[in-house]
C-alpha cells in the first residue's frame, strides 16, 4: 500500500468516526423533538414573534399562574400589564408561551386602545413541569417578558 492512499484512508475513517456520533445524536434529538402538526420550539416561537429584537425582562407584567397545577390539561393563566392604553402608547400584543410544550405557542392576543387595560386570561394545557412566559409587545415596538414556572403533577397533552 502506498503511503498516500493509506493516509487518505485513515483520514476518511477518522472523519467517519467523528461524524458518526454526531449523526446519531442528531437522530436522537429528532426523536425527542416535539411532534405534532404545529410543533414549534420556544426559541423559534420567540424568534418568529420578535424577529430578532431584544426582549427585556420586566416587573411591569403581572403573570398569575398556579405554583402547582394538579391537572396539566387546565392551567389558568392571567396576564396583567401595568402600562397606559392611550392612542399612541399602548400594549399592542400579549403572547402566552409554554417553554416545554410541543407547540410552545398558546395564544397571540392583539389589543387596541379600546381595551382600556392590558389584560388577558385563559386556560392552557401543559405537558410537564415547565415555565410559562408572557411576551408583551408595546406599540413602540419594544418587547417585555415575564416567566413563572408551574409544577405539573399530571401532564395535559396526551
Amino acid at each position, binding site marked *: 500500500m502506498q503511503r498516500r492512499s493509506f493516509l487518505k484512508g485513515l483520514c476518511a475513517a477518522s472523519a467517519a468516526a467523528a461524524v458518526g456520533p454526531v449523526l446519531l445524536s442528531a437522530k436522537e434529538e429528532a426523536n425527542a423533538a416535539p411532534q405534532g402538526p404545529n410543533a414549534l420550539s420556544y426559541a423559534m416561537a420567540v424568534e418568529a414573534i420578535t424577529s430578532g429584537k431584544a426582549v427585556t425582562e420586566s416587573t411591569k407584567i403581572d403573570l398569575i399562574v398556579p405554583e402547582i397545577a394538579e391537572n396539566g390539561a387546565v392551567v389558568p393563566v392571567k396576564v396583567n400589564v401595568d402600562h397606559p392604553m392611550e392612542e399612541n402608547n399602548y400594549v399592542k400584543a400579549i403572547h402566552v408561551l409554554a417553554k416545554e410544550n410541543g407547540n410552545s405557542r398558546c395564544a397571540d392576543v392583539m*389589543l387596541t386602545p379600546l381595551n382600556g387595560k392590558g389584560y388577558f386570561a385563559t386556560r392552557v394545557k401543559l405537558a410537564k413541569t415547565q415555565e410559562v412566559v408572557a411576551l408583551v409587545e408595546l406599540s413602540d415596538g419594544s418587547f417585555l417578558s415575564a416567566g413563572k414556572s408551574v409544577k405539573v403533577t399530571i401532564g395535559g397533552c396526551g
Partner: protein
Amino acid sequence: MAAEKRRSMIKMKPKKYKVGDTISVDFIIIHPMDTGMQKDKKTGNIKPAKYLDNVTFLLDGKPFTTMKVWETVSTNPYFSVNLKVPGEGEITVEYTDNTGEKGSKSAKLKPKG
C-alpha cells in the same frame, strides 16, 4: 357552518357598569380542542386535530381584540379581555377553527348611569 351548533357564552364583569368603566369581557365556548395527538379511548384511532385558531372580539362590527390561538389552549376554552365601555353597543365574538368551522355570538352592552 357545522351541523351541530356550539354552545358559547359572553359574560361581562361586573354586571353593573357605567360609560368609561373598564370591564372584563369573557368568552366561553364548548369546543373539544383536540391536539391531533390523542387516541380515542373507544376505537384506538388517533383523533384528528380540531382546535380554534382565530377568535375576534368586535364592538359594533369593529374588532377591538384579535387572537390567534393554538391547540395548547384547554378544552372548552375561556378567553377574557378588558374593554373600556364607550357607550351602548353590541359585542360580537367571531371564531373559526382549523377545520373551517365558523360561528359567532353576540351580547348587548348596556351601561347604566
